[in-house]
């Protein structure tokens, strides 16, 4: 993010989202989640708790999965943000294909966040164990209880990635 001009309480800011530079005028304390949803109309990233407890709002910040509900616009300076709308590449495709194959979603509200966390996990650890999956995925809540299928889908995606490597 690069500050272009300061008003008293709003900020004209440049942010890098999904590979594009976008100009936003918002208060610098506005969480990235609400910048995405309200200012940019990108609603794939979900509001769930506002306290980094459920991770429905997960995005990638320089490739690392993180919550966006407590991440102020001012902290996104010089960082590369990826949202579910911009999630691409072979890991993303493997994860989403596995989600389809295992039929993970029920209500689906948490699934953007689950997919984002799973994709980040597989980018760093191509063959995660159950313990690795627990460790990475425990931050993401699913109120419908799709955890068992999320685990299966991550293993399945890892297998696909291994086969195509």
């Amino acid at each position, binding site marked *: 993010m690069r500050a272009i001009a300061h008003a008293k309480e709003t900020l004209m800011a440049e942010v890098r989202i999904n590979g594009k530079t976008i100009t936003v005028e918002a208060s610098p304390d506005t969480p990235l989640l609400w910048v995405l949803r309200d200012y940019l109309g990108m609603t794939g990233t979900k509001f769930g708790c506002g306290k980094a407890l459920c991770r429905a709002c997960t995005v990638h910040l320089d490739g690392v999965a993180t919550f966006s509900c407590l991440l102020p616009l001012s902290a996104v300076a010089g960082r590369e943000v990826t949202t579910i709308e911009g999630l691409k590449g072979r890991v993303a495709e493997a994860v989403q294909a596995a989600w389809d194959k295992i*039929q*993970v979603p029920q209500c689906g509200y948490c699934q953007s966040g689950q997919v984002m966390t799973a994709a980040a996990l597989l980018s760093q650890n191509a063959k995660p164990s159950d313990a690795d999956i627990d460790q990475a995925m425990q931050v993401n809540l699913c109120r419908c209880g799709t955890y068992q299928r999320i685990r299966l889908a991550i293993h399945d995606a890892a297998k696909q990635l291994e086969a195509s490597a």
Partner: protein
Amino acid sequence: MSTQFDSSRRTFLKVSALAGGGMILGLRLGRPEEAAAAPAAFEPNAWVTVYPDGAVSLVCPRNEMGQDVYTSLIMLLAEELAVDPRQVKVEEAAANPVYINRLMGAQITGGSTSVRDAWDSLRQAGATARMMLVNAAAAQWSVPAAECRAENGQVIHGSKTLSYAALADAAARQPLPKDVALKPASEFSVIGKPLPRLDGAGKARGQTVFGIDVKQPGMVYAALAQCPVLGGKVASFDAGAAQKRPGVRKVVDIGEGVAVIADHYWEARSALAEVKIQWDDGPAARLDTKAIYATLERSKDKPGTIIKQAGDATAALAKAKPVTARYNSQMLAHVALEPLNCLALVSASGVDVWVSTQHPQAAQATAAQAAGVEPQQVRIHAQLIGGGFGRRLDVDFIRQAVAIAKVVPGTPVKLIWTREDDVTHDFPRPPSLHLLHAALDGGRVAAFTHKMISPSITARMFPSAVKDGNDYFMIEGVIDFTYDIPNLDMRTVIQEIGIPVGYWRSVSNALNAFAIESFVDELAHAARRDPVEFRLAMLDKQPRQRAVLERAAKDAGFKARAHKGRAFGVASMQCYDTHIAMVAELTGHAKKVHLEKLTIACDCGIAVHPDQVLAQLQGGAVTGLINAVRSKVTIERGRIQQSNFDTFPIPRMPQVPPIEIAMISSTERPGGMGEAGVPLVAPAIANALFALTGKRVRALPLEDAGVSFE
């Protein structure tokens, strides 16, 4: 248009030509006896349309909240209509009295009723439409209809084919067929077969639009502060600096709270923090959890309403030294992951409401009242739901959104609750007290009594449905009691507690199953019998229930006695016409246990969409863990003490054990599957805990008894 009531099948249908070509078939979803009761007043509540371009749509009065209605109901239709289910489009139903689910008394999605209700009527509709399309083709070809068949959206005769698109208009002019034969189960090609959820792919890609995601031109946002005390109101407020904050349009007093309307949600939230509000707390301010349970306790000697009776339980108990116990269930929050929200537009042409709701009809009524218009002037645009669990049967947030939007006519306003708003202003699951007595005779149960004392949700939401003290939802888990016991006395007592309570997935099934299935386990131990054998001995007349219990015990490797720090607990019930049994396997010791596995056997009749039946059981079991392990709502000075997922925790991935499921195949009518996975988790774990540690825990959540589930 022609209308037909088929008394043998008790199904109504209406057919008419669609303006511009095509056919539209109206049918009624709901219990067949309801349709039969009022043939003159028949109004379809679901419509199947075959468009002139061959597209098929179903206007469905049930809402999708993850439970798979948008796929499983389409499968019922597609099976008989002979189309690919992936080609059928679902359209959300508007709020309209014609959509009332008469089984539930309102236009709601709940009670695990959707597939049960649609089983006959949607297949009937599909078959009727198919026959009319076939008849139209036969007429065009001048061949007997019996020589034609329908397949994949076409009618075929020898080498000739006509698409539904070409036939729809002529089909609408055919008389309604008199005899419509439904396929036998052996010929099903869609029902019971694998099919990806029709709404699944979008959900894995962030493309699905939930209520909270809906956009309208010129839309602004609202954040609302409500009285911390349940039922309290605004006494006075000072908007102070809030009004001058960037983006703020208005600060509004709606009586039950103060709202800030702003260009963006974060601006509304930030400004709201600066509004100073004095509250009129109201009568609930003196209420706490202890007082609530004391209120239930004071009703323990009320006779209550008799739900089920056999023999003479009083006499049988007098003859023996009875076993007695009392059980409690806790209050719970719903915490659907999509926070409550509603987009409302009040304009000269009426009111438009875009909202994730399980209850469009109540949404319409409350919106009309809040806006001061007639219900017919309110258009409800029902959206895909990011979790319901019963919370979205209530419409408080819809009333608020319309009251706020009314202040800025012509501007759509989206009200979004925070998670804290959601937990602190929930309608919690009712607390309950259960009094149980039983007499044993020769290792069998000679008499069994159960009195459940609880506030009534139905008395608040559907007062006319509660008759003679009988709340239909409080008797769940009791009315279908499966055990053959000669002397039985089952009652409910409605006792209000000073705050409103709400329907929570599986409703009273979970409360009653915890008490009854734990107590049956106590009786097995008192009789020195294996808890599985003890139950089986009372299920001679219940072959389906026997089968699931035997299967769950076998698959789990159930053993009555703990061995090397490992123990099993079992529970069994009939729930929404589905038979289910569950075994929990625990390891550990009195202070600390680990849930190793849940094993489920289930007979839900014909599983329309088998993979999603499994999904409902898996997810239902996780919801059951919320009930069983540590979550609770408590109240102090009228305020709910929990506020977010830190104080109202729900299971995370490492806390969910493997869930193994065996489905018993069946040709019976489908049972309800949306909730059946929930109720048995708590008693199965509590029974395992007793087997492991010798400690009988009779109140939920189990961790309150001093045992930690890591």
